[in-house]
């Protein structure tokens, strides 16, 4: 009765004393993280189609997305991710239809300055580049369209001429009759 349980506990702790330790010496040694780990988010600018679904999915209004319409096409000009309010639930990444938002394995989110906490994913060069691309594409498209339109116009004009000619011919024929 009295004492047996105590001795058993002493034995357990003594056995533990000599067993290998569980501690992982963190900054030097790191445990592998699983692929699904929800760490610092990452944004792929080129994949984003500015559909706003991540903004709608977020329970905490962490994401702010600013767009600009260039030539009828939405372009993301700013993508703020206010990390301090993030719950790391992953609903935004799940909502994204193009996998433009992903969570990396980086879990060391501490910052020295408060303003660094808010993540700004988009830089002006990217926007400028995208804009230029869109404009270029629009121009090309316009050019192509114009070309096509011109061709079509030409074709229709030719057709008209032909039909006019035909009509004139017919008329002439009728007149002859």
């Amino acid at each position, binding site marked *: *009765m*009295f*004492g*047996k*349980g*105590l001795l*058993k*506990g002493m*034995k*357990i*702790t003594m056995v533990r004393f000599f067993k290998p330790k*569980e501690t992982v010496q963190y900054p030097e040694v790191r445990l592998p*993280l*699983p*692929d*699904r*780990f*929800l760490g610092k988010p990452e944004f792929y600018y080129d994949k984003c189609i500015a559909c706003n679904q991540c903004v709608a*999915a*977020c*329970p905490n209004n962490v994401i702010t997305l600013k767009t600009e319409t260039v030539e009828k096409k939405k372009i993301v000009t700013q993508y703020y991710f206010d990390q301090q309010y993030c*719950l*790391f*639930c*992953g*609903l935004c990444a*799940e909502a994204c239809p193009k996998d433009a938002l992903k*969570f990396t394995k980086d879990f060391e989110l501490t910052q020295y300055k408060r303003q660094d906490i808010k993540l700004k994913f988009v830089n002006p060069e990217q926007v400028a580049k995208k804009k230029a691309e869109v404009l270029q594409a629009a121009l090309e498209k316009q050019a192509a369209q114009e070309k096509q339109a011109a061709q079509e116009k030409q074709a229709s004009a030719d057709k008209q001429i032909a039909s006019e000619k035909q009509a004139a011919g017919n008329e002439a024929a009728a007149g002859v009759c």
Partner: protein
Amino acid sequence: MAVRQEEFVLNMGPQHPSTHGVFRIVLTLDGETVVKADPVPGYLHRGIEKLAEARTYTQVIPYTDRLDYLASMLMNWGYVQAVEKLMGIEVPLRAEYIRVIVGELARIASHLVATGAMASDLGGLTGFLYTFRDREEILDLFEMVCGSRLTASYMRIGGVAKDLPEGFVPKAKEFLKKFTLSLAEYNGLITGNEIFQRRTKNVGILSAEKAVDMSLSGPVLRASGVGHDLRKVRPYSIYPQFEFEVPLRTNGDCFDRYYLRVLEMAESVKIIEQALASLPEGPVMAKIPRIIKPPAGEVYTEIESSKGIMGVYIVSDGSPKPYRVHFRRPSFINLGYLAEMVRGWKVADVVAILGSLDIVLGEVDC
């Protein structure tokens, strides 16, 4: 000279090492004996129920994590089950199996904290570290499944977020094998210790009638000899398919409340083993509309969480956001008899009784 005697008021908490968070009890003491206790919860109130009204149905899920953050999987489950019932969604079988597996793992994790915290509340810090060592492995498994360790947000309305990752099943099996040995270790170090038994046996006795009167639930109720476990008496999900027992203790003292959790962990291991063995293939998400818009009406469902009966009441007005959500949090209701339970016991027993009730302040204050 006459000796003047008087009672004094000791404000225990909200900052106290063993109130398990920011719980506060105002104790009126006569020497070391408690004359009157006045629990003051509410220091962790974040208004989750109100917040839920401004969120869509899916967006509420991460907030349920923050109720009982030691068993967030179970909290997710309780909530999504209510929405599913409201919408009449049939959950795929594989998803149900996954829910049972992660849910029971969460139950073990939660009970491990309760067991370890009980030991550390009574001064044996080593037991606490032993249980946390094993809980770490469960958290690793959760991390594999959903990317988060504590706040899982894993379940979705109509299923679970993602299928189990590769390597999960063998890792879980390995853990279960190791865990059975660990249970023996806890029993040797904590349960069998005579000092521990002296401190907990016949302390803070809660009779079955009182427990039922106050609608207490979970291990606290079952330690008083009332075999009320929703998984058995009103089965939900696929629990009827598994063979397990509901452990029962009859004394209703601190030791029984503690030991019941150890026994329940062993039963949970059995359930997980069966579920892992018969895990079917198939989809993990039911076909649900893109925007979740339950029909107008109300619903109340319950699950057996690690702390007791976790009920969710939802009123829908047909919009994509719930009109009202209410959570029946077992920890909060289990605190109902605390004032009466600690009366007449010593200060040290207050800590033991509170530890045996196993409260989580996220859940108490909601």
